[in-house]
């Protein structure tokens, strides 16, 4: 169980680092240690499979239509990270030692250009995290990087998702 939590937390750290990007200046993001100290587990295992979304744990229901897998699920909320553009918080669901879902509980929403970037990047981010995990990579080499903020954000997700093993 500890091993699962560690995997989740390092992913969270990477995600939070991504969303802490000051998008136009060159300042550095959050360190892993900061994110680790603030992450907390909100759902303990034992209840099989709360489904992926929902506003928190759903005790005693357990019948969401999802197959009750043998593996138990853990939902981990990241710390609320204050970015230049507003608060950012991610939630990760781990099932059987693997990340099965990533969602953003909060993201900056001030109507500026970077917001489109963040909200648009979230589904892509999720896909990238899942992909990176399945290959256990440390980072990504790619060619699709331009000065376009959206693509940069995607690249950083690819890169940050390589949380290392």
């Amino acid at each position, binding site marked *: 169980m500890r*091993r699962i939590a560690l995997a989740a937390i390092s992913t969270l750290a990477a995600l939070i680092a991504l969303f802490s990007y000051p998008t136009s200046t060159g300042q*550095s993001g959050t360190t892993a240690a900061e994110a680790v100290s603030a992450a907390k587990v909100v759902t303990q295992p034992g209840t099989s499979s709360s489904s992926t979304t929902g506003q928190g744990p759903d005790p005693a229901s357990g019948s969401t239509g999802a197959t009750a897998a043998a593996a138990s699920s853990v939902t981990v909320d990241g710390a609320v990270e204050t970015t230049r553009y507003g608060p950012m918080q991610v939630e990760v669901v781990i099932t059987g030692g693997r990340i099965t879902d990533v969602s953003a509980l909060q993201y900056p929403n001030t109507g500026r250009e970077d917001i489109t970037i963040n909200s648009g990047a979230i589904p892509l981010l999720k896909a*990238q995290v899942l992909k990176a995990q399945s290959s256990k990579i440390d980072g990504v080499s790619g060619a699709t990087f331009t000065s376009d903020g959206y693509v940069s954000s995607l690249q950083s997700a690819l890169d940050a998702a390589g949380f290392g093993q």
Partner: protein
Amino acid sequence: MTGLTAAPPRHTVRTAMIMGLPFSVHLRGAADPAEVDAAIEAVWASLRRADEIFSTYRPDSDISRIGRRELRIRDADPDVAQVLDFAEIARRLTGGTFDVHGSGWLDPSGIVKGWAASRAAGPLRALGVDHYLNAGGDVLLRSLSTERPWRIGIEHPADPNGLLAVVELPRGAVATSGGTHRGAHIWNPATGEPAAGIAQATVVGPSLVWADILATAVVAGGLDRMDQRQWPTGHEVLLVTADGRVLGSPGFRALLAADVPAPAITYLR
């Protein structure tokens, strides 16, 4: 997942946007936090300095001033001459296809990233931990033990959510260039048939400067620029043609991570 008992080494990730690109530094292992902070700040500072000299978006950069003929190369920052030397080699390698003067003005952007990242990574080596620097998709890495290689996914040109392959290496560089070839004749030396354009080329080797130039050269100049006898030693290439075939130099096979399904690769020669 590795064993239950082995505690994962401390993993530090820092990111910055410089030159309009995302950069990240990854450290694996324990180092003095103040030294880590100083080293990473030195990396960012070096990259920002390169941006000040070479940015074509900054009117006051050396490159912009040279372009307006307000500054002579010999009076500019010495880095300019060094980068232009590399640019000249890249031009010859590509038979003139890759030309920093080709757009009508001086634009060495295609080379600056790899060159600047190589130099900027210096302070990380002094930390004495495994490290890697990702410069907008070009990667420079170094592990202290060959038993702990870094694993780098290569983006799939047609599928941003997918990976083409995963390579594993303890030290060296991985550079990927993309783009469509502009109509010149490209020949596939493996099959003897004309090849379509090149969608993406990844070069792995000891030097990021060279890997970057060679990947650019292959994309710009086509397969006939892949005569490795003309390359600095130790560089291998994996490329995807516009019609979706994956071709690799013979030595690329040994770089692929054994536990990840590799694409169907046609090895050249």
